[in-house]
């Protein structure tokens, strides 16, 4: 298999949240098997998909991800017995919320990739990358980052928010 070296106008940023036991190992297998896939993906390792807080996904979109992949062990194969079931439930609800706030769900992919499925990892990553590439960049969340209420915790504008007249008034009324 050889990677396509042709130039694209848009290189999407794909973030993958994966569990260490199945998908991370599957991605390792893709490596040891020298399979090729687009280099757009950045992998963040978790012990289990159950550890993945939906907030991480929101934050990834906000920090510039154009597509997010969440991948763990197949149902029933969880190293921690049931973590992926909790993740599945959580993300089923989260998808509905995300769709409600206006995110195209094609940017968010859930999959099960086992430690033996190097080929599936390649397929999943390639498919998502190419899909997001045709969709173009995702500006919505990034713009929100510049607004104060979103970046309070980023630090720089925290003082501005905390010292706003509205908040002062509110504090005074409590006192």
């Amino acid at each position, binding site marked *: 298999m050889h990677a396509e*070296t042709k130039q694209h106008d848009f290189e999407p940023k794909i973030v993958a949240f994966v569990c260490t036991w199945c998908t991370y190992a599957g991605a390792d297998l893709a490596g040891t098997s020298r399979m090729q896939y687009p280099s757009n993906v950045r992998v963040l390792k978790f012990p289990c998909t159950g550890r993945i807080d939906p907030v991480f996904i929101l934050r990834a979109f906000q920090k510039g991800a154009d597509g997010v992949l969440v991948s763990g062990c197949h149902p029933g194969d969880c190293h921690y017995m049931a973590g992926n079931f909790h993740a599945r439930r959580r993300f089923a609800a989260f998808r509905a919320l995300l769709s409600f706030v206006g995110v195209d769900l094609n940017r968010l992919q859930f999959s099960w990739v086992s430690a*033996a499925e190097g080929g599936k990892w390649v397929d999943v990553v390639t498919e998502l990358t190419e899909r997001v590439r045709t969709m173009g960049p995702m500006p919505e969340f990034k713009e929100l980052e510049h607004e104060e209420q979103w970046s309070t915790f980023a630090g720089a504008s925290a003082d501005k928010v905390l010292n706003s007249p509205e908040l002062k008034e509110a504090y005074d009324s409590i006192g």
Partner: protein
Amino acid sequence: MSRIGVFVCHCGENISRTVDVEQVAKAAGEIPGVAYSCDYKYMCSDPGQTLLKKAVAEHKLDGVLVAACSPRMHEKTFRKAAEAAGLNPYLCEMANIREHCSWVHEDRGMATAKAKDIVKLMVERVRKGKSLAPITVPVTKRALVIGGGIAGIQAALDIADAGHKVVLVERDPSIGGHMAQLSETFPTLDCSQCIMTPKMVDVANHPNITLFTYSEIEKVEGYIGNFQVTVKHKARSVDEKKCTGCGVCMTKCPKKKIPNEFDQGHGMRPAIYVPFPQAVPNTPVIDRENCTMFQSGKCGVCAKVCGPGAVDYEQKDTFTVEDVGAIVVATGFKLYTIDRKPEGSPIQGYGEFGYGTIPDIIDGMTFERLASASGPTGGKILRPSDGKEPKQVVFIQCVGSRAREKGISYCSKVCCMYTAKHTMLYHHKVHDGQAYVFFMDARTPGKGYDEFWRRAVEEEEAVYIRGMVSRMYQRGDKIVVMGSDIQVGTQVEIEADLVVLATAVQPQDGADLLAQKLGISYDKYNFYSEAHAKLKPVECATAGIYLAGACQGPKDIPDTVSQASAAAAKVMTLFAKDQLERDPVVAKVNEKYCVGCFACKKVCAYGAIEEKEIRDRQGNLVKKVAYVNPGVCGGCGTCQATCPSKSIELDGYTDEQIMAMIEAL
């Protein structure tokens, strides 16, 4: 953490071929907080590790990131090196720029950019990392071996001989497995029963071994050093303590025409039976589906003739919980059934071979039984349909194996050798008979193996035809075998009296279900996965669980026995310590913020979360909070993602660390 060191590895050329490692090291050096960065040809080598240790001391580093291979490969190596340099090992992390970058991308520019990003993310992880101390837990020095074939027997005997207690659990009524079914073994033509049965007796008599036959694993809880395994003891309907093994019940049972599984359905057994005369334990079991007493309530002959009164129709399945510190999985294999497509399986059948419809087409294990002195024909080679001695026998190799289009791409490893053995056994017993073998390649690596195969071809007159068989059908009392001979380049047609198929070796039925109970991984064929193909061939990725025999992949007897002894050695290594150090990746509760909703308790698969009462000085209850038992916590972090007040945190994967990594995207 303000003084981080970044060490970028070339991995010979494995990384540097597609990633500009010098640029990666240079870019890493420019990240705020990185006090030192460098690249080196082999970071994992002794000079590489020395370089790391020296840099820690010289530059007063308080965190280390090694950008190299997968952490699954060398995380331990570098954490040890960091520890030797005086750092807390958990402040050493790895950025995977080999498996996840250099090996999977060809464009140098893109791969280098990705490697820089990976390093940037991981630097944040190191920056927010915390020193952690390993957790010590006691080790229960008692092992569980699952499966009573040669692999399980060998592992159990080795561990027991080392002075540790062993529980051996076997699904069938007797231990022995497939090896007990074989007639002779290659390459020495030893009688299989003669070398197997003494070992079976050793198991039964060993003071350190508790043997549970006709039992299955119901549930597995706990972790390395401290497993709690629930074993289901299926109702035998015969009291093992009372039964003397006299066998009167079997001779008196009126229902005697049940196909015997041990003889591959070619011999008959009664409804109350032992699978074979040398069975261990020699206690019969009632096959309730075929027993008249259980089906119609009228018979009871076996109970009447049993002197000690051991037959008990009321017996029920019982359960025991066994505390063990290590588990050896040795569940073995089954042979591929080729006549039909197994339900729900991607594997295609071999309808064109007529197996299952033509009685004289049999598989290798059935031939073993026909050739065995204890088999249904008393060791005479007689074909199943009419009991005549076959004069032309065709053996077909690679049936199912190495056939991608049929769903199995692997080589079953033992068939070349056992087919060569079969031709010899046949030639020894039917002097005027002729054996033909259709084969793709003869794969005979192993001590004395090629010599054995050559003997079959050169001295024992087996005719080897390189080519495959396309179709077989019955003509009169013969089977017409149509195939090709690719060396001569012609079609071949042989009229055979008997056809023996070397069908593929597959994992046992239910191997996937057992893996799910144990929490170990398996491949797409259901063979169990070892932790590392080369360096950890007997360990599972799940600590404390080891593999032996054909459940991990097709294996012959010498390889199986070697692996079983290796697994036993690993168990003994574990048992050599009284206390075990565990990875401190466990959840902790911030009692200040916890409101005691116990959402975490509901999602915890380990039952590690308890309710703790916080009281003031007068002893009045202030509030209830969650408490995580670190010895029981598995470290999945589901509780943390669930906690509404963010007051529970998994060490090593804190929100702060992950958020910092996302910020660095």
